[in-house]
């Protein structure tokens, strides 16, 4: 059929085949389509398993999929082999979920950053172990329900981008699939920088966050607008906010997801206070050197 051919060509061009095994409304395949569009064909993708892999499996470029205890480390080997072969033309992307980046492979990502390995380290963050059925990770936000935090998570989300920035790597960026232009600009920038680049994007997970898949982009956009997930980059130690939305109650974001529905008013107030603090701090530091 003519239409099928048209779509097949489109999938070839965007380096990812439609029909992933991801849930409806998952931000994963969207994440990769946006990234691959600007990464281009000369890319090697090394990535960890579970959720992220559901999308990675459909990628048409060379990929090496492995378990999430292996974040960044295999890519370190690939980077070394590329140096040996003098292949400076290839972009090496190392991807990991929030569980790999924040928990089991935290040390590996940190060590690769310390060695300043030449790769773009990506965190595809859906804020819990989703593929195993929604278990809490170090990047699950405060208060969120998961199957291992039935009363809501007690601790806050780890600030991985800031922790990575403290490794004095050349580039750190946060992004959101709700803002494709900002997202792609940051990937393009990362691609042009030598050394370890860290790119972190929260992606929507209707299944684990408990909302209607149709609202995926709406919810993730609310995350940025309420400053739950601020968008910034840190280049050469200097912080730059790339999106400075007006203050909007965090409740708008929390109410949109049933993983937060058990929160008490006090807990919401607490989250609001924390978010305000973060917002004010970021606005104060905008344009300034924050890494010394």
């Amino acid at each position, binding site marked *: 059929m003519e239409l099928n051919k048209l779509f097949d060509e489109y999938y070839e061009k965007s380096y990812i085949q439609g029909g992933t095994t991801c849930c409806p409304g998952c931000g994963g395949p969207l994440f990769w389509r946006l990234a691959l569009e600007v990464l281009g064909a000369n890319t090697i993708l090394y990535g960890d398993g579970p959720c992220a892999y559901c999308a990675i499996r459909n990628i048409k470029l060379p990929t090496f999929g492995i378990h999430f205890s292996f974040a960044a*480390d295999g890519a370190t080997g*690939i980077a070394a*082999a590329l140096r040996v072969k003098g292949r400076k033309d290839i972009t090496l992307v190392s991807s990991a979920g929030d569980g790999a980046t924040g928990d089991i492979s935290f*040390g590996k990502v940190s060590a690769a950053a310390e060695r300043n390995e030449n790769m773009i380290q990506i965190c595809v963050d859906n804020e819990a172990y989703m593929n195993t059925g929604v278990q809490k990770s170090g990047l699950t936000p405060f208060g969120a329900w998961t199957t291992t935090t039935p009363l809501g998570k007690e601790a806050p989300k780890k600030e991985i981008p800031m922790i990575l920035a403290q490794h004095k790597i050349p580039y750190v960026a946060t992004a959101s699939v709700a803002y494709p232009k900002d997202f792609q600009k940051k990937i393009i920038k990362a691609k042009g920088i030598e050394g370890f680049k860290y790119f972190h994007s929260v992606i929507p997970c209707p299944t684990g966050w408990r909302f209607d898949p149709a609202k995926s982009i709406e919810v993730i956009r609310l995350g940025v607008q309420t400053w739950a997930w601020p968008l910034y980059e840190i280049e050469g130690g200097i912080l730059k906010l790339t999106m400075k939305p007006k203050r909007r109650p965090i409740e708008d974001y929390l109410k949109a997801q049933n993983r937060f529905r058990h929160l008490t008013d006090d807990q919401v107030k607490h989250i609001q206070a924390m978010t305000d603090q973060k917002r004010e701090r970021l606005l104060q530091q905008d344009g300034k050197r924050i890494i010394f």
Partner: protein
Amino acid sequence: MDGNEAAAWGAKLSRAEVIPAYPITPQTELISQIAALISEGIMDAEYIKVEGEHTAMAAAIGASVAGARVFTASASQGIAFMEEALWMPPGRRLPIVMCMVNRAMAPIGGLRPDHNDALMQRDTGWIQLYCENSQEVIDTVIQSFKIGEDKRVCLPVAPCYDGYFVSATATPTTIPDQSEVDDFLPPYVHEMYNIMPGEHKPTGGSSDIAKARYEVEKAHERARGIIEEVDKEFGKRFGRCYDGLIEEYNCDGAEAVLVTMGSMTGTARDVIDEMRGKGKSIGLVKLKGFRPFPTEEFRKLGKKYNAIAVVDRNNSYGSAGGGIVSMEVARALYALDDRPLLVNFQVGLGGSDVTMRQIEYMAEETLEAVETGKVKSVVDWVELHDLGEVM
């Protein structure tokens, strides 16, 4: 030259391109030697100073899928720490070479050698070749690349040698000539999994699981012959060879044999020579290849000798019958109609010395078993006896 230096030179002469490694006693001298060879410009390789053994193996895997020749080394707790990653290279058919510098596992054991650290990886799919001295280490490292990279094999290889007794003991060692090694070992051509853009070969789907596992098993089957073939070719070129998977030493006309592995073989050679001199009918079999296991070779031994005594420098808790090697030997011999006696010894556990007196004791016990036709116990923990004066 000690064993660690020999291994470093083996890697250098083999032109290993990427070396991800993390230090652990008694392997440290090996990797600092490599760092020194690189910094002095003698060796041209990327040395990745990783933050742990799990990463060392993972980086080795990454470098290998991108087409580099990879060498690394570890020991004991380090091997255990990377175990998850150790399953990948055989499954992905990556010919990584990793020296396992044998050291006892904690907590009952020290920094000194026994073979449990490597033997507990026996099911991962790695080829394991146990070396006796520095010369064998350097030669085996070079051979390992040739074996692992052979199109018919495509498997990772672990040259194993005892910490301290081999790793830190200097013995006269000939360093092969670089151009000779270059002729013997051509540059690595990536036969299986390849991740480079444009050359990318995807792996089979999950429906092929049994078939893929069978392929690894078949590769081990083929490796038996190839280990011998490579050893012979090495012998022709360099004048030294190691008789493939097992070596029979001073066995002519013997009624029984002791089977040893690793550094204790050197001690055993002296003891056996002396005992043969006194007319005792016992020979020595050095087990070099533990994986693939020389099953057929042991069946041949089983037909030739009345008793086979396995000296295990390891133990398998709860097995109720000898160490790991003896279990493998028993399995091999079971198929024979007329089975020899199987005598099991455990000695040198946790890195204690295996003395000449202990070897003499084991030889005598074995000969007694031949005489009486009976084996005294399922397994003899040699170190629990007071054997008196050294031989």
